[in-house]
């Protein structure tokens, strides 16, 4: 029997790793992947809570989250393709035409 708090701590740690990735990396792909880490952290939470609170809502939520992640990734990657076509860069700190 695994205590609920183990799952939560795991997810909190994963979530933090995701945040750090988003904030500190320059490569846009890795930033996007870090966001997926954040979503996965939330998913672990949701499933764990679903398991322990004996409701299935959490699992439903996770399915929706995965759906949204898919759509979001598609759009994000399309924009990245556009960017690299127009700019040839995938580093976020080089996206700086607009300033001020």
């Amino acid at each position, binding site marked *: 029997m695994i205590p*609920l708090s183990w799952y939560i701590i795991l997810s909190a740690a994963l979530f933090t790793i*995701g945040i750090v990735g988003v*904030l500190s990396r320059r490569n846009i792909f890795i930033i996007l992947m870090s966001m997926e*880490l954040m979503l996965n952290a939330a998913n672990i939470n949701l499933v*764990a809570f679903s398991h322990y609170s004996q409701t299935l809502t959490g699992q439903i939520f996770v399915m929706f989250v*995965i759906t949204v992640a898919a759509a979001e990734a598609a759009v994000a990657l399309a924009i990245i*393709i556009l960017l690299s076509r127009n700019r040839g860069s995938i580093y976020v700190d080089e996206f700086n035409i607009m300033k001020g």
Partner: protein
Amino acid sequence: MVNQVIFFYFAVVILASAILTITQKNPIHSVMFMLLLFFHIAGVFVLLNAEFLAAVQLIVYAGAILILYLFVVMLLNVDRESTAARANRFWPWMAGFGALIAAEVILLIARGTFPSEAGQQPMRLAGSGVKELGELLYQKYLVPFEVASIILLVGLVGAVMLAKKRASD
């Protein structure tokens, strides 16, 4: 006991591959560690009696989303990758900030309580609850389900519209 050992293994691999994901220089290696991570998260889901979700996690997350990343990363194989700096110049601050958040979140969680923790038994459902999931999804969560379909459509339309080369460009 065995479950705990398995959980421990999963947790260690998840965290290690997460850290490796965000520290790799080459995004393709990141994708590989991400794949590893997804597998182990699917494992955690199985531990939590959510086999259906574990399969969905693999099919959609690993099999579709991550593949998409891999495709685009490979297509845009930017060769400056090896020379350019990996992180932005604030990264030590951000990492410190992250550690702070982690400490805080874990502290808060350790001090807080979840009602379900108090003595309730984990759920046991026949058939991994696929039937129950389906009933919930198509009855109570019908509207969100429809919205999710529209979200996918929007993602589709957007991706095609943005990324497709046109004669006029």
